[in-house]
């Protein structure tokens, strides 16, 4: 086995003994297991809350998040002197309501988080399946491409890409997505390598099932749970990346609101009006924490490699 990257360097041998199960039964078992894991429940609750917040933003936000109010600039949260309940978490340097911006900001943070993982996942899974299934020269070519991407630091890659393309929501999703396709590609490739050697795949081949069908009917379903596990974890990383790019001025631009942009715009005021960037910072941290908890739990449940770690 070649060891090209982190995913493959996992200290445990790839061993997949999963069988196809009845989907709904599986889900029920999952839910039951979830309730026994404390971190899993906390993670799920956090993630659900954030998603609800994003969905219901227009209903629950007390103000228009972009409403500028020069008479009420830099108002502190209600529990501090000069603060009051009209702006619970205070206002920013243009007098905009922080709570409303936080609520609306969850939308872009979530969209970027999920969609860029979908983009990266799609590209990675397709390339991984092709490389693993066909092997040979195709595999070599794809793996050299993977190596090349791995050799360029992610931040650097994002910056170069974002200066080329016009900044915007979809550019950002695309760029962040492209930077993590290699992770999926190598994971899916190594799993495909082992699955294609199994008896039922070989049998399917001999009776003349098309390659396309084998890949999508027999191999893909078997790598799916691993994909889900690393996806959850990389959503968390994506949200952090988005805020880092905002810091560099390459992320989403106003009037769009994201937690990253709030955090980086407010950093100038950290020493004097801490609430500007502390609340989005806390929001990011809690969300990422929730996603990681959820992901760890999913890993414990779905990934046979780490079953031994549950006690």
């Amino acid at each position, binding site marked *: 086995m070649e060891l090209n990257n982190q995913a493959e360097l996992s200290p445990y041998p790839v061993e997949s003994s999963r069988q196809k199960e009845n989907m709904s039964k599986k889900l029920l078992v999952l839910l039951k297991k979830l309730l026994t894991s404390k971190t899993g429940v906390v993670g799920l609750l956090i993630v659900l809350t954030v998603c609800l917040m994003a969905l219901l933003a227009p209903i629950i936000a007390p103000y228009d998040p972009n409403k500028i109010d020069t008479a009420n600039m830099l108002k502190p949260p209600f529990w501090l002197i000069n603060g009051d309940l009209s702006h619970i978490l205070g206002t920013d340097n243009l007098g905009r309501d922080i709570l409303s911006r936080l609520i609306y900001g969850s939308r872009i943070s979530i969209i970027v988080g999920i969609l860029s993982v979908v983009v990266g996942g799609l590209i990675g899974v397709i390339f991984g399946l092709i490389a693993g299934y066909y092997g040979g020269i195709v595999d070599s070519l794809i793996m050299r491409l993977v190596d*090349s991407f791995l050799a360029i630091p992610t931040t650097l890659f994002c910056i170069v890409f974002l200066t080329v393309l016009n900044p915007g929501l979809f550019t950002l999703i695309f760029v962040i997505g492209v930077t993590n396709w290699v992770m999926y590609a190598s994971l899916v490739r190594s799993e495909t390598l082992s699955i294609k050697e199994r008896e039922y795949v070989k049998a399917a081949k001999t009776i003349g099932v098309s390659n396309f069908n084998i890949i999508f009917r027999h191999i893909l379903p078997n790598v799916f749970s691993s994909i889900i596990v690393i996806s959850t974890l990389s959503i968390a990383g994506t949200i952090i990346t988005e805020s880092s790019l905002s810091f560099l001025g390459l992320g989403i631009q106003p009037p769009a609101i994201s937690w990253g942009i709030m955090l980086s715009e407010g*950093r100038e005021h950290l020493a004097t009006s801490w609430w500007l960037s502390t609340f989005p910072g806390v929001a990011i941290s809690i969300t990422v924490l929730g996603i990681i908890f959820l992901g760890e739990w999913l890993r414990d449940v779905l990934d046979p490699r780490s079953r031994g770690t549950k006690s």
Partner: protein
Amino acid sequence: MWKYLFMRLLQIPPVLFIVTIMIFVLVYIAGDPVATMLPADASPEEIAQFRHALGFDQPFYVQFGNYILDLIRGDFGESYQYGTSALGLVLERLPATLELATASMVIAILIAIPLGIISAVKPNTVIDFFATSFSVLGKAIPNFWLGIMLILVFSVTLKVLPVSGTGSYAHIVLPAITLGTAMSAEITRLVRSSMLEILHQDYIRTARSKGLKYSAVVIKHAFKNSLVPVITITFLQAAALVGGSLITEMIFAWPGLGQLIIQAVYAKDLPIIQAAVFVTASMIIFINILTDIMYRVLDPRIKFI
């Protein structure tokens, strides 16, 4: 073994070649740096004249051909911004970045190993949760926010550490903490899971049943054997740091590659971008191969068969 090593080394040139082409094409699409090199009020005639003088009005294949020819001769060209050798500029900053990466690695290990061991020894207890959450938090806080906070607390308020720059060992503490905490998350999780795995294995049980002290078992057997994956991931993360510390370097005015690269990308200073990517990519590939070999040589399973 040697054949394997040879095969791996053989893969390096094509990878570096692909990287080089990818960067050239990206930067070419981004447009030339001429407009940003002149003052904000330069006239279109001045810009066009300057573009011609620097040869940026030549067709793609000419520029690309010249570029590749220079590269084969080992010449990365001169920086558009600074007018001096691009590779020289990159190599000049490399030591500072490596220094920071090493210090962050040390801090990450100092945080991760105790936390990982404690949470593996007492899984699913309050201590475990404390340890896990702490390490996760390191990853959940954006670098720049943590960096600014550390400066406010330790330099401005408490006045115990310098704010920015270089000069003494104290200068490296805050930036290394900023990067190290983020690195420690993954390592803590890995120490925890690999320790758990090993603690459940038969030989550990045997060792314990022989009456060895638990702490001795943990340190001598379990920890020692979980070291290989931990070292591997630490090195891989450190490799990623070579290009991933840009933001932290900016916050702490650390004179490493970070500021050079960011400025170069904004200014479309292709020679510097290429030289920097080439150097960091080579290092990442080198570290990958090194850890790969180390992994094959040191795998604990081989020892116990």
